[in-house]
């Protein structure tokens, strides 16, 4: 979490409008249904669906 905390601090110092979402159990490539079968990489259906919804909400906020 050191890098995450540094990122949060950087955003706050810049006065940016930001948010951070953390999905438990999600590994690298969690939205990639056919990603490589290597350690540390895995598809995660819930973590794929939730940010997709969040993205649509973001677009609704931006574009109305």
């Amino acid at each position, binding site marked *: 979490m050191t890098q995450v905390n540094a990122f949060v601090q*950087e*955003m706050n110092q*810049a006065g*940016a409008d930001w948010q951070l979402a953390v999905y438990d159990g999600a590994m690298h*490539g969690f939205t*990639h*249904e056919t990603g490589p079968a290597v350690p540390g990489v895995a598809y995660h259906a819930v973590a794929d669906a939730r940010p997709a919804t969040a993205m649509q909400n973001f677009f609704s906020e*931006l*574009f109305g």
Partner: protein
Amino acid sequence: MTINAQTIAYRHGDTELTGQFAWDAERGDQRPGILVVHGGAGLDSHAQGRANRLAELGFVVFACAMYGRGVAGNRERIMASIAELRDDTAKLCQRARAGIDVLVSHLPGVPRRSGPTRPHDAGQCIRPRNEPSRR
């Protein structure tokens, strides 16, 4: 709904890039454009699929390319390209900016042309280190 896809060749400086538009051909109204930036593997079926999903939501979508010709599918070249762009965030932004320029040049709907676009030397769509985006 009829999702169309069209491949577009363009350039960033001397780098030849190939991106893909996706849009609902049954809609002729103005609608927002979305730039899709692929993951480490390059502009693959995953990124194209995400672009199609966004097109189904009504957006005009351009899935841009961050790697030049002959990189995707070659791990050594991919890693070299990632390192190059990671170490030069200005180039990273400019590469993405070239994609935005293609997207904007084709809005609001069906792509009007294909072929190289002029290179650009400024970009803000990806956060460079220490330069967060602001509203």
